[in-house]
């Protein structure tokens, strides 16, 4: 299977500091990868290294199984055939839309070039705007021009730096769907950077969660969210709340009840990841098995009902906690004690 990009053990240093280390992954033609992670984790550095703005110190980048870039064979940006869409679009303010789009089209006759520009204008629904200057366009139109300009030289892969952060949140979802469909129809591979996990789930086929210059986990968004491989991944993707636990063989004890596990070795594990959907509220009269064990700290109103943040009533023991979040359709009040239990599910401990 041909890979559109294959990265092997990529390392980038700035002065003595290692900014990126041991980055390895590959993408197939037409795949879209979302790079996520907290700020300063190296997402944008990775994008800039792929584009050739930053030089790598170790490892290789292979484009289309043919062009190998490494420390010995540095390829300047203009020879990499990579397209990029910048957060602020970076449209040339002194050129019209047509000239912006045509900027990177070279070595073809004028009529062919014009036909190509017109084709892109139509593809991106920019008909009639070719003679305008960037400042005469809306934000959404500017982004379409940026995409058309990046697609014009027919790059192998498209890099997008926080492409949706300047878009009105109301339009963002529609635009993401539209651009995804466009990229899919062109079989264009893309890597995009975001700090918004929701964007990844809408836009990407693959997700790479980065932390301190490394990729912690790479895979499909659904796999990564079901089976995060580290607490940083689970924490960044906000998959659930953290509960302290104790185990006696296969019996797991928490402040809101005990669970049965199918293994008994939990050395080095301290916290149990609890997703909101695994929490159950006991509305019956409390019993000795199901006592009131939490008190409500905060309530927010959402479309899915009420979102509650609770803390354990018992604040002394090793198992006590300050923050557990879940959704419920019924309205409770602040400081109201509740009885919670955890549904049996596949346990994730870190």
């Amino acid at each position, binding site marked *: 299977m041909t890979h559109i990009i294959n990265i092997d053990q990529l390392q980038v240093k700035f002065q003595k500091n290692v900014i990126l280390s041991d980055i390895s992954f590959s993408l197939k033609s037409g795949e879209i990868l979302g790079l996520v992670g907290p700020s300063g984790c190296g997402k944008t550095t990775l994008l800039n290294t792929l*584009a*050739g*703005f930053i030089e790598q110190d170790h490892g290789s980048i292979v484009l289309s199984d043919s062009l190998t870039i490494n420390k010995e064979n540095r390829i*300047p*940006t*203009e*020879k*990499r*055939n*990579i*397209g*990029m869409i*910048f957060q*602020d679009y*970076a449209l*040339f*303010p*002194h050129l019209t839309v047509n000239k912006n789009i045509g*900027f*990177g089209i*070279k070595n073809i006759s004028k009529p062919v070039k014009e036909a190509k520009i017109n084709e892109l204008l139509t593809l991106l629904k920019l008909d009639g705007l070719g003679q305008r200057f960037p*400042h005469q366009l809306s934000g959404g139109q500017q982004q379409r021009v940026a995409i058309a*300009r*990046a697609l*014009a*030289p027919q790059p192998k892969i498209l890099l997008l730096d926080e492409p949706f952060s300047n878009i009105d949140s109301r339009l963002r979802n529609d635009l993401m769907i539209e651009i995804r469909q466009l990229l899919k129809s062109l079989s264009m591979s893309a890597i995009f950077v975001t700090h918004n996990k929701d964007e990844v789930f809408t836009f990407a086929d693959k997700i790479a969660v980065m932390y301190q210059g490394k990729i912690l986990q790479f895979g499909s968004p659904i796999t990564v969210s079901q089976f995060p491989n580290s607490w940083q991944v689970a924490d960044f993707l906000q998959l659930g709340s953290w509960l302290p636990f104790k185990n006696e063989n296969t019996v797991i004890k928490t402040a809101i009840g005990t669970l049965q596990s199918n293994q008994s070795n939990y050395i080095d594990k301290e916290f149990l990841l609890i997703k909101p959907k695994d929490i159950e509220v006991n509305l019956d009269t409390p019993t000795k098995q199901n006592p009131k064990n939490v008190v409500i700290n905060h309530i927010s109103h959402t479309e899915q009902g009420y979102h509650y943040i609770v803390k354990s009533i018992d604040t002394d023991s090793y198992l006590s906690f300050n923050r557990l979040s879940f959704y419920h359709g019924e309205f409770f009040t602040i400081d109201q004690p509740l009885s919670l239990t955890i549904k049996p599910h596949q346990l994730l401990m870190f």
Partner: protein
Amino acid sequence: MLGSGLNVNTSLFSHLWETVLPTYVLNTVYLGFIVSFFAAFFGVTAAALITQTNIKAKSILRWLLMLPLAMPAYLVAYLYTDFLDYAGPVQRFLRETFDWKTSEQYWFFDIRTLWGAGIIISLVLFPYVYMLARTAFEQQDQNLHRASRLLGLTTFQTFYNVCLPLARPAIAIAISLVLMETLADFATVQYFAVNTLTTAVYDTWLGYGDLSAANALASLLTLMVFFIVLFEQKARIKQRHQSNRPNRGSHVILLTPLQQLLANIFCWSLALLGFLLPLALLIVMAVEYATFAQLDALIDTGFNSIELAVYTATIATIIAIVLVLYKRLHQDTFKAVPLNVSGFGYAIPGTVLAMAMLATFGPIDNVINELATKVGVDEPGLILSGTLFAIVFAYVVRFSAIANGTLSSGVEQISQSIDLAPPSLGVGALKGVFTVHIPLLKPSIFIAWLLVFVEAMKELPAVLLLRPFNFDTLSTHIYQLISDERLEQGAIGAILIVAFGLIPIIWLNKTEDNE
């Protein structure tokens, strides 16, 4: 002045028009073209080499290339004439080396021509283009360069297709500044006997004694300045490509060793010819010829200069504070009008301003004297047009723009909510200004004062026309010595003028480093 110009004595004016005026106008236009061309070539090339390439000694050249601005063009003109003419060291050396006896045996270029004047003026004015172009290149959004590279253009192609077009408005503004200074130049062209409109105004007034013809010529000059100002304003409107992600050295054109050598020769020659060589010649002169008698003359004229400069700086700064704060704290639609109007003076050549002062205050003086006679008091004489009053007035008009600009940028640093804080605490508007705004503006007030002071120390043409009898400033003293071909006797004064000229450049450099 325009009024007086319209009442021109037609016989003299038509005589001028039939004889010398077309040449004067053409000379002025040619000079403008020569200076614009060379200043643009020197300035843009230097700015491009400093910002876009890996030229060696970049950190030194960066500020060295600004220094020629401190050199008055007429000084450089005199020094080079002295250096390059038949009796000068260069030709003497050539004659000795090749054993030539007379000037007929070899060809040597004559610097005292229109071209010579043009090149000398561009040598000291190109830093305007250099500074504005350099800032424009550095302020360009880094992502625009990146986008161009990603679309397949090399660093050099990117410079030509993206950086240069984006810097065009800034370059146009700089060239209009250079043109304003060129039209204002009087001493260089006078010394080189190149007759331009500026020298024509001077000659018509002081030579023929015809005030209205001089005013007509000055009006013609003003018209030219007006077109340059229009051009400048148009360029300013286009200048909106600046970014907060400045591009400093991330995409540089790598020079080959030969290119590196040529680039260095180019930049060092500019610094050498525009500043270092003239300064060295001045220092040699000062060391050889300095006497105590010269020092006396220097102290006298120096005090006159300082007196004028202190009055001017103080008045211009106070006016600027009032106008800038008026614009900031008032809500009416025309709040910016007084500030903007007071800024126009900078474009007007000193000679024209001086004519305007004479045209305005001369008649007023006459009225005052008539009134005095009627009342039976002694005639006070030309108390407005014949005293320091006219000079200071002309200076304030000419240099207000500098004080306004400095204080405007100072006021922009103060957050808008600071304006609202005093009234919200029950403090009156005027008290708020004195207790909040003016203390916050202190550094800007000082800088504005200093910059106007320095400009007033250097100004020449306006004083030449307006000075009372037997009154000399440092610059008129030096100019007089230059006219008499004996600058040797004022070399220390000339160095002093250059030193004053360095103050604002050092300040510019410092603020830039802070940014």
